[in-house]
């Protein structure tokens, strides 16, 4: 086993509601080229293994992994696909390096959500085909039901959830990669149309296109190639029951399991003390609050209140989703977690431009695979 593992290069393309000028391959290529350039590596010579995260039905192609190698420089190299979130892909690269067999690995994730003409139908195809799908209920209902139960269990209010939208969309205005920034009031959010009560349309992330590539390296390579490697201190991932009937509707156990694994590696006992900032799932606004509690950063029922108090704001003591989150950057499908890891890396390097946080040394990224799943991952980074 090697010692530490670092991110030595990042590249991205997008994120935008549509990307009509580029094919998905060209979008991936743009992100890859930037990442390799950033890391100072030649993929044909230096990168030893490649990982893409993708799902067939997001691409409109069965066995999509066929189409991954060329535009990443991975032809005739060990490359595989993980049907998971970008942070699952990152964890895979982390493990590959930890085996000692690979010293440089690239991870790619992308979204061409704008090319999917029937998104609700595609998402619904993830419902259990016998137990749930015959009911023909729009899959957002799962978020509505979960939010309802979470609000009751945790004494959280709709206003507190709406506050997440105000914060994240405001943060997005400082992120040139975020297409959905806006200056909204609490009233703007609360007066928006309902989607799946108590969940509103404005509390739901819209889709975006984009691609992200990260270059991961062993400690030895990282120190040789990079003057500012960002260390992966821990990663974890976990699943709760896939069955809607077997789940705990109030709590995100998939976050807890993933966090425990990541904290154990990073040696973190008190996440609120240890972590300087976090990028967490907010595909639906309540998810940010539920997730922060499941991560153990705040106690059960506290996340809403601290959000109102401004603790998670950009200038608060533990900024959350300074990038703008998914509410601001858009839902990038399988690439969501990589967008979050990317933001953490940029912040830890001091490369985050006008949204740069001061004095940050440890950041956390977390992702969820969206309805109807109970699956997600966590990664912790340090500079």
């Amino acid at each position: 086993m090697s010692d530490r593992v670092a991110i030595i290069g990042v590249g991205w393309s997008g994120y935008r509601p549509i990307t009509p000028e580029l094919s998905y391959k060209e979008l991936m290529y743009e992100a890859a080229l930037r990442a390799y350039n950033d890391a100072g590596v030649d993929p044909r010579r230096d990168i030893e293994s490649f990982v893409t995260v993708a799902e067939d039905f997001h691409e409109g192609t069965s066995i999509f992994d066929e189409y991954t190698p060329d535009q990443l420089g991975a032809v005739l190299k060990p490359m595989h696909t993980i049907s998971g979130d970008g942070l699952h892909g990152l964890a895979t690269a982390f493990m590959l390096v930890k085996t000692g067999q690979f010293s440089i690995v690239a991870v790619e994730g992308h979204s061409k959500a704008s090319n999917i003409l029937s998104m609700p139908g595609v998402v619904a195809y993830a419902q259990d085909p016998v137990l749930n799908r015959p009911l023909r209920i729009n899959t957002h209902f799962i978020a509505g039901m979960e939010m309802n139960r979470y609000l009751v269990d945790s004494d959280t209010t709709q206003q507190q959830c709406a506050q997440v939208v105000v914060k994240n969309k405001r943060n997005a205005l400082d992120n040139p990669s975020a297409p959905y920034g806006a200056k909204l009031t609490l009233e703007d959010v609360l007066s928006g149309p309902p989607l799946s009560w108590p969940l509103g349309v404005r509390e739901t992330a819209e889709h975006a296109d984009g691609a992200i590539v990260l270059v991961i390296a062993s400690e030895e390579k990282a120190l040789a190639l990079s003057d500012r490697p960002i260390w992966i201190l821990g990663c974890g991932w976990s699943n709760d029951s896939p069955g809607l009937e077997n789940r705990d509707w109030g709590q995100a156990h998939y976050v807890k399991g993933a966090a425990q694994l990541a904290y154990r590696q990073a040696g973190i006992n008190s996440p609120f003390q240890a972590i300087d900032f976090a990028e967490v799932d907010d595909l639906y606004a309540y998810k940010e609050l539920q997730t922060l509690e499941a991560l153990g950063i705040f106690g059960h029922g506290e996340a809403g209140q601290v959000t109102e108090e401004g603790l998670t704001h950009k200038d608060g003591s533990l900024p959350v989703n300074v990038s703008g989150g998914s509410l601001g950057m858009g839902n990038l499908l399988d690439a969501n977690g990589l967008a979050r890891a990317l933001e953490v890396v940029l912040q830890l390097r001091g490369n985050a431009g006008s949204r740069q946080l001061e004095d940050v040394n440890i950041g956390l990224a977390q992702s969820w695979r969206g309805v109807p799943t109970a699956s997600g991952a966590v990664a912790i980074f340090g500079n």
Partner: protein
Amino acid sequence: MSMRKVAVIGAGMTKFVRRAQETGKELSWQATHMALESCELTMDDIEAVCLGTAPDAFDGVHMNGEYLSDGAGAWRKPYMRSYVGGGTGVFVPIQGWYHVASGMFDLVLVVAEEKMSSYFPHAQGAFLTIFDHTTERPLKPNLLWIFALEMNRYMQTYGISKEDIAQVAVKNKRNAADHPSALLGDADITVEDVLNSEVLAWPVNRLDVSPVSDGAVALVLAAEHVAKRLTDKPVWIEGVGWNLDTAYWTNRDLAYPRYVEYAARMAYDMAGIKEPRKQINIVEPYDPFDYKELHHLEGLLLADRGQAPQMVVDGITQRDGDMPVCPSGGLLGVGNPIAAAGLMKVAEIFWQLRGEAGARQVPGQPKRGLAQAWGDLMQVGTVVIMGR
């Protein structure tokens, strides 16, 4: 830096059937449950789960890995699904290998499932959408095309006859007669039967092809210190390799699977194997079509280019030959529930090396075996080498 050793300590599999009543979750559970029982472990012992399944279109569930997770034992555990098309079945144990070799986990479940019969009206329909959506799909290609195109190129390049290739189908279907899970075992099949079966896509006849199937297979992987505690017959994963060629499959020579060679070289290097033809005792190469077994033996460097057919003709690859190939019966005989079929090959090597393969046991107490799968658009090779 020395790598952590990883062992296979348990295996389970369902029957491979044309249409299973079980849901995909239930098939996964049956195989997983059996694998745990085989090494007397419970879910409390398992630290992480790896799943392999091929296109979502088969099971007919978007994010099929998530759907199958409970059957694979993933409840509140770290769980991931890997995907390299048809190569997936031999990739999942590689995924399990890096879970353990990384030092992250000591005991990992590896599960592969496929329920092809859920695609309706015919499983082949799922393959219509594997081609490039803009430049190829409008031609309405079906899966048989690319195999037929590759087989023809292979035959033409080396002057190989259909008769020689048909011997592979005969050997594997005969071998499968001894496999309790097999769908298409046939102890009496002849070369004539294969050659006289209906032409699907010349040069491919019906009996050159493995059957569409449903099924699941599971393994338990353990780190060295745990494996030694749990069993006195661990089977070590000595080398792994995988490799992906360009998606532009009409821009390369289909006569030789260089991606298999690259994957094999990676695995041989890791296993310290210098002379594979001497050091590998049993081979389970991927055989969804009979010519593929030959193609892959060449890519694995176990036969010279164009010379694999002669090995079959000479009986070298029979179960009692010098280098038994597909003693399980392979995909041609046991069946081809894609990802599960690949993992079945790894399970076969496990059972063979432990001397637990029953009627299929190859003589001579083999020490080392190799399983290989292939997938995508004539594009990916996955290789696992195991030894006692």
